[in-house]
């Protein structure tokens, strides 16, 4: 039960990513096709990197530099369709949607990154503890992980947020508390495999304490996997945050995240105006795909034998 993939695709934890076994001499794959797929892969990595860079620059630079008030209401310009002046159109009180989306992405990204970091720290600590302690500690801790994963993530998140609402922290905590499980499993498996390596044996026979072995020899080996899990978790956390905000349980409206934008666009959508709904959603999808593309390349580097060929 513990080893079954819980999710797949771009939102998957690193250990459950669908990989395409590239056995030598696979049917129907000529040298030309392989070469083409290598250039496709390079293209994918560079376009992903470009998008991620653009996103980071946009959320970091636009708010302080552009002296624009994203909350400014212009009732005369309400619900304008996309045009040159307002590339994404305006919302129901005349606010520019491009600006609103950039600010929403800023909030969503911040929540996502913080939640992912917290979840990775918890997951790495729990996984390393379980694996290095072994015995009954390991069994009890991993059983608790199983118990935790028996509650659907979003439901648990909804419950926590409902009880501690409103604010940013309940959302961060609820996303972090529901996302450390896969990291704990990955880290535990990695520590167990590292522990059987000769250099760890050498350290132990050299008289190193258990703590020293864990901190000096095991954790550094685990960090690339944990880092990969953290990066892959960011889009997942953004997805969860936007779902909570859409349900009206997430961030308050003055801290509009992408989910809040979709939520507040509902009334305009039912009146037939599609743009306030469409663009915030695209702001979730495009960075998610870009982060997944970069993380895929990273995984290929640290894990070359399990090369994946996500054809995006």
């Amino acid at each position: 039960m513990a080893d079954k993939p819980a999710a797949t695709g771009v939102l998957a934890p690193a250990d459950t990513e669908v990989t395409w076994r590239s056995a030598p001499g696979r049917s129907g794959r000529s040298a030309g096709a392989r070469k083409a797929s290598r250039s496709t892969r390079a293209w994918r990595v560079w376009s992903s990197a470009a998008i991620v860079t653009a996103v980071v620059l946009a959320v970091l630079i636009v708010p302080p530099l552009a002296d624009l008030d994203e909350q400014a209401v212009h009732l005369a310009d309400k619900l304008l369709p996309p045009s040159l002046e307002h590339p994404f159109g305006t919302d129901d009180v005349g606010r520019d949607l491009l600006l609103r989306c950039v600010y929403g992405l800023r909030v969503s990204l911040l929540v996502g990154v913080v939640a992912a970091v917290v979840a990775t720290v918890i997951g790495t600590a729990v996984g390393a503890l379980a694996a290095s302690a072994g015995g009954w500690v390991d069994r009890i801790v991993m059983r608790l992980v199983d118990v935790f994963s028996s509650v659907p993530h979003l439901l648990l998140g909804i419950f926590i947020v409902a009880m501690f609402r409103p604010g940013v922290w309940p959302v961060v905590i609820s996303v972090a508390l529901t996302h450390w499980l896969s990291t704990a499993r990955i880290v535990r498996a990695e520590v167990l495999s590292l522990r059987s390596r000769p250099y760890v044996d050498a350290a132990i026979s050299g008289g190193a304490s258990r703590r020293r072995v864990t901190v000096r020899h095991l954790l550094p080996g685990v960090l690339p996997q944990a880092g990969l899990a953290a990066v892959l978790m960011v889009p997942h956390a953004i997805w969860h945050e936007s779902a909570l905000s859409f349900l009206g349980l997430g961030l308050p409206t003055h801290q509009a995240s992408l989910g809040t934008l979709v939520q507040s666009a509902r009334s305009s959508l039912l009146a037939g105006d599609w743009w306030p709904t469409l663009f915030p959603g695209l702001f979730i999808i495009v960075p998610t795909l870009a982060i997944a593309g970069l993380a895929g390349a990273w995984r290929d580097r640290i894990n070359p034998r399990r090369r994946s060929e996500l054809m995006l």
Partner: protein
Amino acid sequence: MARLVGRRAVFAVPVLLLVTFGVFAVAEASPFDPVKAYAGTAGLTASQENLDQLRANLGVDRPLVSRWWDWLTSALQGDLGDSSTLRQPVADAIGERVGWSVLLAATAFVLAILVGSALGVLAARRPGGWLDRAVTSLAYTLEAAPPFWLGLLAVWLFALKLGVLPAGGLTDTSSAAVTAAQVTNHLVLPAAVLAVSQLPWFVLYVRQGVGDALGDDPVRGARARGLAERTVLLKHAFRSGMLPVLTLIGSRVPELITGALLVETVFSWPGIAAATVQAATSVDFPLLAALTALATVAVLLGNLLADLLYGLADPRVGFDG
């Protein structure tokens, strides 16, 4: 097989105990006050005496463990408390709604399996071909797209622009009775959106399973015997490629519940997932606690189903493991 079911039932007991206790512990740690929630707006003007009396009546002062134990024992006797938002016993509220949720989820799941298998086989036929690239890209994009967003866009397109399907609810507002034709008509959009949100997983796993099977010896043997490509693909590769997928179906229950929470809310579907969101919005603790426990039971049943299918589909796997 009975042994496996028995073992899982035994494992389910501590899981449910821990989850329900966790629910009570989180509520205890939160600023949520059951007395204020119970009194509602009347609590603002009520005297301190009345509030204290209410506090004593509700038994809020008693320690966490004894409240949890009381809830558990009465829950086992079928009494889950009263829901403050729906103004009826929690057990009745769940009984009325669970059928609609199961209908929606089952329809969507079957739809996702059918469409997902078809797309997965098509993609696996020529890895790296244009069809494969198109299907995989679509799968990754859909995986990244939030279901509520897809649902809203579907409402805009099919209900507002084309006007072919209703935008939400179970029946037309004008009709008093719940008829099968009405329900079917209203089921199409939510079930399709929920299916689309579950689709990427099926497509990618079927594609991988069938793709791997196409490189295996039995398929090579079938090809060597000169069987038609169609027969090789559907009778040999598809069958063995679907095995790993079939066994994972049961473990998709959490994702299905997550999708249902969002889709039911978008389409005002009168199921328990939408009720969960309402309960959360108005901090209806008895309903939330019961629904969390119910969802946990559903996940555990799904895991059991996964293990049973694993054993049934692959005779090499024993039921003892």
